[in-house]
């Protein structure tokens, strides 16, 4: 299997020289296509910063990040936006659905920036995949938390990205909804998607074959099952 993600001695530093915070220190990590990986750690362990770098939302201070064969560490904001649009699907803890748009309009959003035709059909297809074909015209506030997160997953799926990046996807959900969302992520992995989940929920970590543990900005342990 080809490597999708390759981090080499990646560091991220915030703040000015006198009050510097090193959120991620010399992290090297590679993820192959089709893998399901959990990144775990307490809050402040640097896992969110790592997720921002993996998701091309931020660039490393030093080190190189090769994503799908391209070194993206020095990309401009516009090129990073293009990588995010075409190759990465995000699932956030707070769902981040736009409240005034219906479910399908929310799912359509990445396609809007990608351009192209048949956006409504593709959005409806993605909603069907997450089992919400009967909720396409509902607004986020008319949906349960679990349903909202499934809309968010449909939005992540709709561009058929190389990587699905989920940041605490079950953090705001009750246990039943958590289970549903988790099953959905597992199913996507089963379909061949590469999924990286950032979490501190041991139940989530337990279902993944590979777990990367972080503490103080460094990878301290890696487990494979």
């Amino acid at each position: 299997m080809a490597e999708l993600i390759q981090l080499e001695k990646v560091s991220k530093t915030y703040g000015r020289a006198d009050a510097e915070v090193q959120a991620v220190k010399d992290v090297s990590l590679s993820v192959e296509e089709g893998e399901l990986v959990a990144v775990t750690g307490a809050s402040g362990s640097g896992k969110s910063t790592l997720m921002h770098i993996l998701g091309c939302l931020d660039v490393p201070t030093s080190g190189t990040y090769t994503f799908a064969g391209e070194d993206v560490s020095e990309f401009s904001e516009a090129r990073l936006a293009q990588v995010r649009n075409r190759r990465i699907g995000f699932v956030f803890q707070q769902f981040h659905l736009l409240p005034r748009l219906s479910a399908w309009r929310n799912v359509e959003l990445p396609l809007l920036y990608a351009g192209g035709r048949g956006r409504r059909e593709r959005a409806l297809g993605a909603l069907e995949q997450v089992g919400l074909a009967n909720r396409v015209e509902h607004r986020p506030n008319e949906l349960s938390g679990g349903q909202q997160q499934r809309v968010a997953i449909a939005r992540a799926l709709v561009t058929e990205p190389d990587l699905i990046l989920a940041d605490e996807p079950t953090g705001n959900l009750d246990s039943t909804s958590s289970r549903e969302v988790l099953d959905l992520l597992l199913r996507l992995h089963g379909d061949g998607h590469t999924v990286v989940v950032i979490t501190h929920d041991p139940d989530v970590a337990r279902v993944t074959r590979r777990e990367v543990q972080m503490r103080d900005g460094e990878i301290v342990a890696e487990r494979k099952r």
Partner: protein
Amino acid sequence: MSWYSILATGMRSLLGHRLRSILTTLGILFGVAAVICTVGIGEASAASVTSRIASLGTNLLTVTPGAATSSGVSQGAGTSGTLTMSDAEGLADRSDAPDIQAVAPVVEGSETLINGSTNWSTTVTGSGPGWLLASARTVSEGSFITAHDVSTQAHVAVLGSETASELDAGVGSNVTVDGVPFQVVGVLTSSGSTGFTDEDDLAVVPITTAQDDFFGGSETVERILLSASSPATLGSAYEEANDLLLQTHHIASPADADFQITSQSSVLSTAQAVTQTLTALLASVAAIALLVGGIGVMNIMLVSVTERTSEIGLRKAVGATPSDLFRQFVAEAAVLTLAGGLLGVAIGLLAGLVIPRLFGIAIDITALPVAIALAVSIAVGLVFGVYPASRAARLAPIEALRTE
């Protein structure tokens, strides 16, 4: 992202904040409507002032006698009888004064006219055939006084339209003026002027007849009306009249002149300057209203950017480039101001129809101020939308996503 998608996205977000969008639009709307109406009122009043003064004759010069000086005390303009019929004849000489088209010496008195059992007091003007042209008047019925009437001291009269109707007289009627019988040969076209004096209530008779019958045979005239061949030659006509009169009156220095020459165009240009200043004043107040509206748009757009930080973050995360977001926010501002501008034009045009009927204020709406107001409103949207839009474009996606 295509412009169509950007506009559609912008519209969707504006419709999502309906009340706010409407209130923002109102600022621009009233600004544009105010600009259109005030400029319209200004144009209408300028046109009305110009036409009123022009109806008195823009190429008209009036020669009046200078002030008589008695023991060094000026007795005021028009008190001395320094203008005579020979002055008028001299001015009528084409070779000496080529730019003067018509000359009309005038004497005036108030007399009672009688037609049968009807009597009416009015101003009787004694003048010659040049009076018609020099006063910018026309005859609606019959004819005007001829040079022959003047040389033969004919007892003929031409009546103003109001005088004719008050006396119940027309062409062919016989009226007596101060007991002397005159035959009415013409009636003047109504001037429609509502100036200081009623231009339609008068009677015109040959000047020689008037001097003989009402002024005891005096050769002096009260004033001489001159008409330049065109408004362009008014200046040279003035020079010719001035030189000729100085020469015939044997006056060496123009400062000692015993006459004055005034023109309607000097009055006209003063009046036009006044209305232009007023229009500019009104329009600038309206322009300030438009500017305030524009600042309102910027304020709302800034609030909108701050409020939608998380939305901006999400859009960036799913692939919006800084340029996409910049264009989206500029488009939103432009749509707001364009809507305000178009509605403002509609309200302005409506006011142009309604205000004249309700308040009797004339409004002339021309295409130029409408186009300018619309263009300015769009420009305002673009200019005041740029700063908020660039703030939206510059937001770092992770910062934006972190905000809740």
